């Protein structure tokens, strides 16, 4: 699936730059993408290291297990195939909470950890489990209550009412999340192989 999308994106960009007679566009993009991905990766390394360090402390203190116990009903409803006392459940909950609070940088390490635990439950298969599909649908819909970056940017540009878009944004995000969950449920019931 990813291979085909990636090829289509690359071919469209490459074809268009040739049509425009910009033969250097591909190399230019490769250089700037290399720079961007490396600098983002290094930034992520610092943040991931820090958060996973804190998370390890929380885990050894028994906090992660406790959080999982509290969120049991929600996780059971969203992810019927994940055992409620599994570490996967706590990481899923931490990821979703961080996303809701607009801590995108904090959400990613929890999300990656959740995927590792889901993969373990899935026997390390290369085929996604139903729980992974639901988890990614929720993450791609990305419901946020506090979009810190956008708020900051609006303030920086001297908006008269920086937070005025929030009610419309939350309702929009909620619509996306509900649609993602509905499609996910329907496909899971039909046992779809591909999208």
């Amino acid at each position, binding site marked *: 699936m*990813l291979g085909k*999308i*990636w090829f289509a994106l*690359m071919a*469209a*960009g*490459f074809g268009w*730059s040739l049509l425009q007679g910009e033969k250097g*566009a591909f190399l230019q993009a490769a250089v700037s*993408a290399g720079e961007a*991905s*490396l600098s*983002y*990766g290094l930034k*992520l*390394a610092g943040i991931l*290291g820090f958060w*996973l*360090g804190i*998370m*390890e*402390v929380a885990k*050894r*203190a028994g906090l992660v297990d406790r959080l999982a116990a509290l969120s049991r009903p929600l996780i059971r409803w969203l992810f019927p195939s994940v055992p409620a006392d599994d570490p996967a459940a706590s990481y899923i909950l931490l990821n979703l909470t961080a996303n809701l609070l607009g801590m995108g940088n904090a959400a990613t390490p929890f999300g*990656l950890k959740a*995927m590792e635990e*889901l993969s373990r439950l899935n026997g390390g298969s*290369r*085929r996604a489990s139903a729980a*992974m*599909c639901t988890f*990614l*649908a929720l*993450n*791609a819909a990305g419901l946020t209550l506090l*979009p810190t970056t*956008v708020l900051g*940017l*609006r303030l920086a*540009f*001297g*908006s008269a009412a*920086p937070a*005025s*878009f929030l*009610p*419309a*944004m939350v*309702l929009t*995000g909620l*619509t*996306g999340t*509900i649609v*993602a969950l509905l*499609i*996910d449920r329907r*496909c*899971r019931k039909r046992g*779809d192989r591909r*999208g």
Partner: protein
Amino acid sequence: MAEFLICALLLAVLAYGLYRGVNIYEAFTEGAAQGLKQALSLIPYLLAIMVPIHLWQVSGLTESLTKLLSPFLEPLGLPGEVLPLILLRPLSGSASLGVLTDIFYQLGPDSAAGLLGSIYQGGTDTTFFVISLYYGVVKVSDGRYTLKACLAADGAVAVAGLLFLRLFFS
């Protein structure tokens, strides 16, 4: 406020760890080592998604698609300036944030385009980036119906954003 909450939470976790007799220094460094290893293994996936995004921008494909589609979208009340943001949002959060900055600079954050852009930037996440990152790290190659559910959500967000903009700001 959010920053204060995060700091308080972090300190609370460390204090609770001490209280429970955990060797918090050792636990932190071991967790951090895992995080660093994970981030480095992600760089190839980042590179894979960033090359086509940059290529679309450098070659002018993003701009041309915007021009091509804007006559159909203006009657719906969708300002043409927001279209690149809708197209880029599922691909790259930083690229669409760049478009939003440009809209704020040109038209102001309280213009219709500025408000709608804010709604889209905050109301959804980076679909393709999330999929490639999360499936990449556990080496899943068959995502089944994931993409269908995610793209349906993106479509719903595009429509809902316009509706709620009208509802709250007309």
